[in-house]
């Protein structure tokens, strides 16, 4: 049993963090937030130069063939640095690309994805399940909508999960160019400062060459699970940084004649937060390490991970703001930016309660009786 990262993995993290410390500063981020596009093309180029988009593309397609561990490592760094660039979305889409994209498509767009010249992000609205595919002359035709799709406005291609039966969960994956006829979108900034959109598909034609899988709910679930893993990793990075900021603040903020970190009630609350972060860390790496294997049930691991990530995001975020006092609610403090990222993380991909219920159902329900 081995919990160590490989030398390559360690190197990946070091390189990435060194770059982000230099080029993704908090001041830089505040500027980017105010920019028209809401993300930094320059920073993205730098990340591409480091090979970030190649990380999750399979080796046959020319990528680095990273696993769920690499996905989580990169997303953790992205969360620590509060990135506005679509790293997690792109990497999740690339993981799906490596597993499900048809060969012709790999040859066609693999290189531009690896280089980061073209952006592919997932469009999954599993909550509403309102994207429907119907058979068409050569392939499928898609109608419906997808709400609050992170990074959708930044992408060149969308990896879209659609249903083939009305009212049923999505079971089909197709790729749609952002410029396809019949697509419209409303773009906005989210609570955590990222760009997202509500997408509307009005009879969008999908040729059979753009269809990755059909009638395969497990494939869609796999992509969703990658997304949850990526979000949990981002959350881990964010709570780690948030906790460090809070500890620094407690050491330095003077009230009643000394640093407030000497008050035991605050100390014990920090320990509780720290303990939750430690537990999220454990389970993120357990889930990532077992993601591709047969050691455990990935569905249970991921449900548990999401429950922990939602709870930890909420708890650490709220505690950090409270322990920062008034400063915690100001735009100028980094902690308030992490807080908003954590608020969003606690909501995306379904609520903590839904995932806990799904865990219980999957684990304890017997003989088909719904729990």
């Amino acid at each position: 049993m081995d919990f160590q990262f490989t030398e390559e993995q360690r190197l990946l993290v070091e390189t990435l963090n060194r770059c982000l410390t230099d080029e993704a500063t908090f001041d830089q981020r505040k500027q980017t937030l105010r920019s028209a596009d809401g993300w930094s093309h320059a920073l993205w180029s730098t990340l591409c130069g480091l090979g970030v988009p190649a990380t999750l593309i399979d080796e046959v397609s020319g990528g680095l063939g990273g696993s769920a561990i690499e996905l989580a490592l990169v997303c953790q760094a992205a969360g620590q640095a509060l990135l506005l660039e679509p790293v997690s979305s792109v990497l999740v889409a690339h993981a799906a690309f490596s597993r499900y994209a048809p060969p012709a498509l790999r040859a066609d767009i693999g290189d531009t994805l690896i280089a980061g010249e073209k952006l592919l992000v997932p469009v999954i609205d599993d909550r509403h399940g309102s994207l429907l595919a119907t058979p068409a002359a050569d392939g499928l035709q898609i109608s419906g909508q997808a709400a609050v799709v992170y990074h959708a406005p930044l992408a060149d291609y969308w990896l879209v999960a659609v249903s083939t039966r009305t009212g049923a969960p999505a079971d089909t994956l197709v790729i749609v160019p952002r410029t396809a006829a019949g697509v419209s979108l409303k773009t906005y900034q989210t609570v955590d400062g990222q760009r997202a959109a509500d997408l509307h598909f009005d009879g969008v034609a999908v040729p059979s060459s753009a269809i990755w899988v059909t009638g395969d709910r497990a494939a869609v679930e796999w992509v969703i699970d990658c997304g949850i893993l990526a979000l949990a990793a981002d959350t881990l990075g964010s709570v780690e940084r948030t906790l460090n900021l809070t500890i620094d603040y407690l050491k330095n903020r003077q009230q009643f004649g000394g640093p407030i970190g000497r008050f035991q009630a605050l100390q014990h609350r920090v320990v509780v937060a720290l303990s939750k972060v430690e537990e999220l860390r454990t389970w993120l790496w357990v889930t990532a390490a077992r993601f591709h294997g047969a050691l455990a049930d990935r569905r249970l691991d991921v449900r548990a991970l999401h429950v922990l990530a939602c709870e930890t995001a909420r708890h650490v975020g709220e505690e950090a703001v409270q322990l920062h006092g008034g400063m915690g609610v100001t735009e100028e403090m980094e902690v308030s930016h992490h807080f908003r990222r954590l608020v969003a993380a606690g909501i995306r991909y379904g609520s903590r309660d839904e995932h806990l219920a799904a865990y219980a159902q999957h684990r304890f329900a017997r003989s088909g009786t719904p729990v």
Partner: protein
Amino acid sequence: MNLALSDDDRAFQDAVRAFIAAHLPADIAQRQLSGGRLDPSDIRRWQAILNDHGYGAIHWPVPFGGQDASPLRQYLFELECALAGAPPQLSFGVRMLAPVLMRFGTGEQQRSFLPSILTGETWWCQGYSEPGAGSDLASLRTSAVLDGDHYVVNGQKCWNTLGQHADWIFCLVRTDATSKPQRGITMLLINMKTPGITVRPTVLLDGTSEVNDIYFDNVQVPVSQRVGAENEGWTIAKFLLVHERTNIAGVPWSKRDFARLLRIAQVATRHGRPLLDDPDFSRRLARLEIDLNVIEYTNLRMLSAASGDLTTPSILKIRGSEIRQAISALTLEALGTSALRLHSVSGEAPMPEDDLTRGVAASYLNLRKLSIYGGSNEIQKNIVSQLTIGL
């Protein structure tokens, strides 16, 4: 023990309802109930309407234009206002400065300042906190040096709420730097137009600028604008803390927000059925409603008692803020990702502003302040501990 309202109180409540139904402007109510942000002009407008109908400050003594309303009636009044979508009255003048002036102010000060609080003409703000004096208020350092018939004020205040709209500020300043921190503090009333005052809004995490830093650079304040004696400011600050506690739990606003949450739970769906029918969600709603009902009656119990337990206001502050924050958090969760939309940036179409999701995330973020300001919940716990364990 009889938890029914007396006939008189019931009549008062009915009258308040009727007044609100007749006079609360529809546009204001619409903004409030749909989670829109507070417009300062709404507050002034509503204060003027209240005053026109004798509701300008019902808790004030009759000679000053109030109704001498009991704490229970004050609560009923605020509850009806909140549920109907009236904006909150600006407490700095009506609830904070006014009782201080009535107790410590000169007759001249009372005549000069009280009437325009009632009408809403003068917007007051508060200058207490400083960068190095938040929870530890007594360590404030903004100085006032007597120079003939003026004080000369220098220093910086922070966490000043809505001072960018204010006409006047009441300030705690240090007039004696040599004695122990609580001594040597004085309260001054300062016109915001006095030369030397700079207001710099602080951008908060919900995107608003609800608070400000205020800088004082050799600001001249007539001695006649001092409240009480020099170096007696701490006594006044403590008086305010004890005095201002009728609505410390914020129950009216929690009830308004909970009603909104219920409406959302009826409309929003999870897995194709109304959220209200989801077992997990309905239990969390139930648990929260229980807390809300309990805190409402804990508040009423305190208001009705001749002399309350000294720990109760702090407990109401702690639990009241926690419950209101919990309501905002559950509302956010009820809406899920659709609450995450903030600012439209797309040229093609305006951002959807349907009543349900509007302002929900911003409100959740904004309400983090409840457990921080007005004596943080940690300070409140220290107070209760001091009163019970005493160590």
